């Protein structure tokens, strides 16, 4: 569409004004709009505000991508929370979100708390729900904390070697030792 004033430039500005109680809209090119002193500041102001934010977000995104996952497209299967949505609101949607956004959260939590691991109280429910079973012979030899640490090491190794079956077994043994779940 051509500018309604000079009929030359491309109309990019819709200028709505009230004349005798009726709303009129003029489509103008930028030059004419400027001549008429029309506030085109609103959209362009938005742009200037958006750009640094955008740059910042892209930068963050890139640092997030260090782990090679596409952070921006990640979303939680359980509650449907998209990573972008989380970033905007700063609130997670459900327990599973912590798994879905684990790589990003790992960095974020470290930045917020300066720590990577929880220390302190654990859940009570898990303990009271499964009363201690009489230990099997297998468990008796592995009930000291050294073995627990050893098992954790083995688990870490198994995970990094992508030996998931072994990892799952190790995880179950660790859980059993911790008396959980």
């Amino acid at each position, binding site marked *: 569409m051509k500018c309604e004033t000079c009929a030359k430039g491309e109309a990019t500005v819709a200028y709505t004004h009230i004349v005798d109680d009726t709303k009129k809209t003029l489509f103008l090119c930028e030059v004419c709009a400027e001549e008429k002193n029309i506030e085109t500041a609103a959209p362009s102001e938005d742009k200037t505000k958006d750009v640094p934010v955008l740059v910042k977000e892209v930068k963050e995104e890139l640092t997030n991508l260090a782990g090679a996952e596409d952070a921006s497209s990640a979303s939680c299967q359980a509650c449907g*929370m998209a990573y972008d949505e989380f970033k905007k609101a700063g609130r*997670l949607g*459900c*327990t599973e979100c912590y798994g879905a956004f684990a790589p990003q959260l790992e960095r974020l939590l470290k930045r917020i708390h300066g720590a990577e*691991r929880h220390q302190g109280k654990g*859940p009570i429910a898990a303990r009271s729900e499964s009363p201690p079973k009489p230990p099997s012979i297998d468990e008796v030899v592995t009930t000291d904390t050294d073995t627990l640490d050893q098992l954790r090491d083995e688990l870490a190794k198994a995970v990094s070697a992508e030996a998931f079956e072994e990892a799952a077994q190790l995880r179950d043994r660790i859980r059993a030792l911790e008396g959980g779940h």
Partner: protein
Amino acid sequence: MDLRGLVNNAARWLSGEDDADGMIVSCRARLARNISTLPFAPKATLDDQEQIIEQVLGAAQQGRQMGNAAFFKMNTLQSNERRLLVERHLISPALAESKGQRGLLFNPDESLSVMINEEDHLRLQAILPGLQPMQAWQEVNALDDELGGLLRYAHSEQWGFLTACPTNTGTGLRVSVLIHLPALVVTEDMERVMRGLTQMTFTVRGYHGEGTNAVGNLFQISNQSTMGVPEGEIVEKLVEVTRQIMAHEKEAQAALLKEAPSEVEDKVWRAYGLLAHARVLSSQEFMNLLSAVRLGRSLGIIDGMSSGFINQLMIITQPSHLQAEAGVDLSPEERDVRRAEVARRHLAELGAA
């Protein structure tokens, strides 16, 4: 239970016990918890919210600590009643303003409470008088044990308790003290103290917590980080930081007294005089006068007035308390007249006693 009855309830946290030279009004410990099988606040439907309330109430009824607790659903309360609960530090301003199914459980002396469906499914709180945050932590911890034995909390081995906002992940513990720092405000040393605090991963907030301003020289000091340090150590650190700030405040008080003893004494007694005789007192003026009187008490200028008296007066003169007491809608101007009346009456009773 009628909420209006709360107006004159002697909440435990207002008693003035363990007030650490009149500097510490109260302390609290709160835990953020979520039920692992239900969506967190941003994704919870009204049905989910109902289920959460049911589960929490069910668990609370089975336990001993909340056996005779009062329960209120926020959407059954009028806005003034919700603000009354904010003024009594039982709910956050956010809970008072939010829509949907939200609830509050609290015990008769108001020291233990649970907000349901605030930012997290459960916000457990213990609030006590004076500088005894370890006791507050132990009390909230015991309630948490009880509820946690019946509810399946969202938790991960690595990250601890999982919360809606990552700033609470881990222990979910925020522990704080409400501290009176008039001399540090006058000597303009607050900023320096705040900078020091941030370096120690503690933070200063206003009277009503996050996003609120300091009124009457009262500040809330709380831990910033919730992960990586066990609960007991977080609390110990808070006590340590608080004692340091108290030492700074005492120094500043001593300096003021040394430099201008008559002016300090005059300021205290003028404040007392206004509280005892003024006919119109705005909330802000009242809080500033009460701060001067509190300082006067700390310095031994005013005798025969307890911290408990000051704390109680501070709460019953809050806008929604005045409103509830009156039983009719009051304009801000009418409230200011009422506030002056209440202050006058209480100081007269104190003088007569």
